[in-house]
């Protein structure tokens, strides 16, 4: 299924095993993750010294509050993309859980119960994606484009013109609470817990190794005893659940449950994850790099806003950064290949045969 998202040619397959011949610090340093994190440090340093007001500690506070939904959803999204799938419906799930939360609260359901029910609803949304992908065998890109419209449609349909805004103040304050007298928001605690949980799940458990195995080759994973369908189903459900969490945070932070909440958030999340070095082909990527990607986009947006730029410039920079980050390795590869080509021995381009999904039905007009 990973080949669905790939370009027309999947010739650039890299050796997936780590090369253990170099010292550990080199292996740690010369990675895609390290490059993103280094860039994050550089941009932050530049912003602190050169962008007025960036060095205020309140910058960090706003940064964390703004990035929380993106960061939350980026965690399960990383795992989903590592398996070679994708989930475009996350922002719609955020909106649907926000609206469910709001409607239940309006109808007098206690707020904690309302939140739990909204989370259940979001998990169901994720599970529906997962079932369609694993049981029915549909491509996740098509499924989640469909549920992107469906979940958003239900959210907008349920509330129509209204927004639910009468939230108890102690709850909305909770979303903006600072830790003691510091400028660190309270949401950092659940964030750190979840980041650690997902990092452990992906990098230190057999489930996590299964996730990589599925992304590298479904066949091989299956033969080595990984339950591919179950792995994907769990990940899509997690993706829904965490999106639901983001929906509840969204509702409380802005004190408003609306059908158009988090519109377009899915693209920001995916951009951050890909920037963080996760391969859209599946099989490659790590949580630290994704953290770097999320914060890199956040810091750049924050610095640009402080420098009086509007959303348009932020969009251009985000777009270019995403393209450069994925194109650079190929360009460098291409440059070094063409250098070699000028040498005496020409290396012909050799296509690597990849697992190609068999066409499910014969193109029209071909036979029959």
């Amino acid at each position, binding site marked *: 299924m990973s080949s669905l998202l790939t370009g027309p040619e999947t010739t650039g397959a890299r050796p997936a095993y780590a090369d253990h011949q170099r010292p550990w610090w080199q292996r740690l340093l010369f990675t895609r993750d390290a490059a993103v994190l280094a860039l994050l440090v550089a941009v932050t340093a530049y912003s602190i010294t050169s962008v007025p007001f960036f060095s205020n500690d309140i910058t960090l506070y706003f940064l964390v509050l703004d990035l929380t939904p993106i960061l939350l959803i980026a965690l399960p999204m990383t795992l989903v993309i590592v398996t070679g799938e994708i989930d475009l419906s996350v922002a719609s799930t955020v909106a649907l859980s926000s609206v469910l939360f709001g409607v239940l609260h309006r109808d007098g359901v206690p707020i904690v119960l309302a939140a739990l029910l909204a989370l259940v609803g979001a998990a169901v949304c994720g599970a529906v994606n997962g079932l369609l992908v694993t049981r029915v065998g549909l491509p996740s890109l098509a499924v989640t484009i469909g549920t992107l419209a469906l979940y958003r449609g239900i959210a907008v349909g349920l509330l129509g013109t209204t927004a639910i805004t009468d939230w108890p103040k102690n709850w909305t304050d909770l979303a903006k609470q600072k830790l003691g007298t510091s400028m660190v928001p309270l949401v950092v605690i659940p964030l750190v817990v979840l980041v650690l949980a997902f990092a452990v799940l992906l990098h230190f458990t057999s489930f996590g190794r299964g996730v990589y195995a599925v992304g590298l080759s479904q066949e091989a994973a299956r033969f080595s005893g990984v339950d591919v369908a179950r792995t994907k189903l769990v990940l899509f459900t997690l993706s829904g659940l965490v999106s639901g969490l983001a929906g509840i945070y969204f509702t409380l932070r802005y004190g408003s449950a609306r059908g158009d*909440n988090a519109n377009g958030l899915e693209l920001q999340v995916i951009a951050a994850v890909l920037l963080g070095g996760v391969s859209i082909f599946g099989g490659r990527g790590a949580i630290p790099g994704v953290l770097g990607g999320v914060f890199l986009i956040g810091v750049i947006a924050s610095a640009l806003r402080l420098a009086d*730029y509007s959303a348009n410039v932020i969009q251009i920079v985000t777009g270019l950064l995403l393209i450069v980050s994925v194109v650079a390795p190929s360009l460098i590869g291409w440059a070094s290949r063409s250098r070699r080509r000028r040498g005496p021995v020409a290396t012909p381009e050799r296509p690597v045969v990849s697992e190609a999904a068999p066409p499910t039905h014969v193109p029209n007009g071909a036979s029959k």
Partner: protein
Amino acid sequence: MSKKFIAGRRAGTMAVAMTAVLGLALSACGSSDTPAASGGDSGGDASLTFIPKNLGNAYFDASNVGGAAAAKEFGGTWKQVGPTEATPDSQVSFINTAVQQGAGAIVISANDPKAIGGALQQGRDAGTKVVTMDSDTDPSYRDLFVSQADAAGIATSEVTQIADQIGDSGEIAILSATANATNQNAWIDLMKKDLADNHPNIKLVDVVYGDDDDQTSFDKTAALLQSHPGLKGIISPTTVGISAAARYLSTSEYKGKVALTGLGTPNQMRDFIKDGTVTSFALWNPEDLGFLAAYAADALIKGDITGAEGDSFEAGKLGSYTVGADGVVVLGDPTVFDKSNIDDFDF
């Protein structure tokens, strides 16, 4: 040379390439001619940040011009920043940024009465004054609301115009902006009440939402005319909606048969008044609105007024204004545009 080393070098080169992109973007920040911002940020007391509902909206661009002109008069700075889509969460980031920059005042048209409240309150705690214009938040979140016209006045003006044009009886519909727009919903409620009280023969059959998007408004107008064949009039109290609806009507079989009125800018509507699609519509001058909001913000910063009822301040060429109940300052009655006067206006 191991493959991994090449990969490592690639990552390094990639970092260089990415830094180059950023460097380009950030070094451009250094230069002062930022296109989105009119005026520098000297950080003086009267530094005003204007956050419209969204960028690229003709109405707010006019307000921006007015605000910048006012700031120039009283020696302050004025800049416009904002999101590309009219959503509250994207406005919040720009509010926060203005607060971080220690802006003297934020002038904002709210995308949601509550959702941006927390961010505004934070700014007020930090000493930034908050003036809403065009679309209000809950009164507790701002110091002043500069209203384009009193809501009841707008509603009555719209209803009276449509009643005149359709002979005070028949089916009408409303083409609004987004479903959550505060001002739109307030006007619609008042219009419903006015219709029920004073125009029993006019029946409001539908309210549809064009999301302040040309294409959606255009298509919604088409759907409206088809689902209600007996429709005699449309009210569109939004500049985007009325021009899209007028454009649809002007080329359809309903031209001249279905009346259209609402709020629009003369430049957008001139052609439709002249070809007879639209008889009359109304609007205040959005440039004056920005101008007044800037002066109000300046008066708040200087401490001349606190936003309490009965406070009064001077607003340059517009004269003297007094704060009404709930901290509302009203610009004045809307101007009604028709064939006779439309050429006198250019905005």
